[in-house]
């Protein structure tokens, strides 16, 4: 196990005590791409900050390749690379120098640092922008420089915090490719995201977290199977007074597995929406049906199943 997290908690004291991480246990195997999926405020960033020595845990331990991050932070930092959510490139240095001096901080000689920087600039298609300053780069390019810089000292694990936040779709795809290429170099990747597509298509295993707790863990495929990923059909209604009777009526409908009453209508779980839609519309119309939303089986529906909430809520 390259990353081992045991009984991790983090409480922020203050006027309002906030339990950001509430007993998380997980371990990441060498060479895998591991996703922490959850809504904003679920404790993903705090977990990653603790694992990368930038936040002190309230209790629990994190070990990177056997090195305890609280006891030996300086050693742990040799084993990890970090790409934070925000752009932390050194604004006073060029792109090349950002990578070059990063290597120097990690003890590379001038020659080694120069060679490694040139190599990474080529690998990440940044060679033409080597003399540019971070402020002259687009979000996608800056993100690529940050990844290149983070792996410059050849860490065993790379932590990516919300890597696609603020990226346009094209840059996001480029970033996904870059992350997948890291696997070929044997770098383990731990990423946080609240985009379920990202967790689904990138990760070998996903941990779903909410309110500082881990709700489920497994490959995206396994999660969908275990939690009976179903099509979720959300029916928004104008008249909510008879909603209970609508729900019980719908439960007897063939193809419907479960029905939940939510604040603005009902949520229908089914194996597929084929043929069912017409029936649902018919049944819901007398209740003032005003909107229908269909979510095909995905980590999103797994999340809804687990928490009764939408990832975006």
């Amino acid at each position, binding site marked *: 196990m390259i990353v081992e997290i045991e009984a991790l908690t983090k409480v922020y004291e203050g006027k309002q005590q906030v339990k950001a991480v509430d007993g998380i246990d997980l371990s990441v195997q060498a060479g895998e791409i591991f996703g922490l999926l959850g809504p904003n405020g679920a404790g993903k960033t705090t977990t990653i900050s603790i694992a990368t020595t*930038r936040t002190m845990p309230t209790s629990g331990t994190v070990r990177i390749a*056997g090195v305890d991050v609280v006891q030996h932070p300086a*050693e742990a930092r040799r084993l990890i690379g970090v790409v934070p959510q925000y752009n932390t490139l050194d604004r006073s*240095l060029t792109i090349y120098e950002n990578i070059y*001096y990063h290597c120097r901080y*990690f*003890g590379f000689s001038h020659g080694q640092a120069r060679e490694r920087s040139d190599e990474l600039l080529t690998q990440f298609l940044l060679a033409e922008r080597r003399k540019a300053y971070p402020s002259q780069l687009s979000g996608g390019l800056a993100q690529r420089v940050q990844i290149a810089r983070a792996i410059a000292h050849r860490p065993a694990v790379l932590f990516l915090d919300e890597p696609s936040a603020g990226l346009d779709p094209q840059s996001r795809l480029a970033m996904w490719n870059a992350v997948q290429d890291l696997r070929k170099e044997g770098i383990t990747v731990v990423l946080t995201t609240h985009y379920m597509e990202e967790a689904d298509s990138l990760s070998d295993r996903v941990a779903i977290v909410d309110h500082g707790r881990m709700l489920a863990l497994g490959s995206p495929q396994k999660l969908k199977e275990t939690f009976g990923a179903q099509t979720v059909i959300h029916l928004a209604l104008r008249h909510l007074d008879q909603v209970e009777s609508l729900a019980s009526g719908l439960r007897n409908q063939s193809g419907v597995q479960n029905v939940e009453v939510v604040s603005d209508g009902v949520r229908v779980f089914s194996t597929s929406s084929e043929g069912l839609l017409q029936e649902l519309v018919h049944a819901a119309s007398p209740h003032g049906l005003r909107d229908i939303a269909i979510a095909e089986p995905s980590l999103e529906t797994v999340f809804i199943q687990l928490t009764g909430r939408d990832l975006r809520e």
Partner: protein
Amino acid sequence: MNKVNPDRMLLLKTFLGLMQRDLRVLSREIGPFLLRVGMQPLLFLFVFTFVMPHMAGGSPMAATGVGFGSILLPGLMAVAIMFSGISAVALPLSTEFGITREIDDRVMCPAPVAVVAIEKIVFSSLQSMLAALAVIPMAMFIPATPVYPDLHRWWLLAIVMILSSLLAGAMGLAIGSIVSPKHIGLVFSIIVVPITFLGCVYYPWAYLDKIRWLQVIVLFNPIVYISEGLRSAVTPQVHSMPVWIVLPALVGFLYILVRFGLRGFLRRVIS
């Protein structure tokens, strides 16, 4: 997997890497650096030791018997040292701690976080020393009556310069990590100006004996010991505080400010 042992070589390399980074950044800013360092002593010497003596009733310190230039030289060196410490540490830190969090990559280097802060102090102390030395030739050429420093006690000058420069860097660190980036502009009016004017820069401490309460209060101002220390090293003809008081005071203030600065820095980068 084997446990990685922290090795001293790596620590040294990391430290040197951080220094080289700062040197690179400074080398690009050499023009602004020289202006920042040179403008104040240049104008001070020009106005008070060249322009004023040419006017009727001239030198403000004419009655003391010692040329005002001799009093001003160590004082301006002290200001140069303190000013460099604040501009080289506090101002950059406030941006690096700000929205960009640029400091993060350096904090993530394979060394204890305190090393990053100590490097800031050491690098700024080099700038402080250059700034202080630059005042000497100005004092020889600008004043109507040139001031020649007495460098017989060069060892004392070296000790005072090193301690003072580190002290100024530590003060910069403490200010930069305690004051929020939003208020950093205020630092000049509420910290730098008072400690300069009440730092025995433009007058020796002994001359304050007529205003006893002020003479006692300024003892809490570290700049006093920088000015007086330099005074006894560079212009021994001007009466100054004894070295056996100045040196322990500089060490004491250095210790306090380093502790304060490191604590503030750690609090800023580790939550």
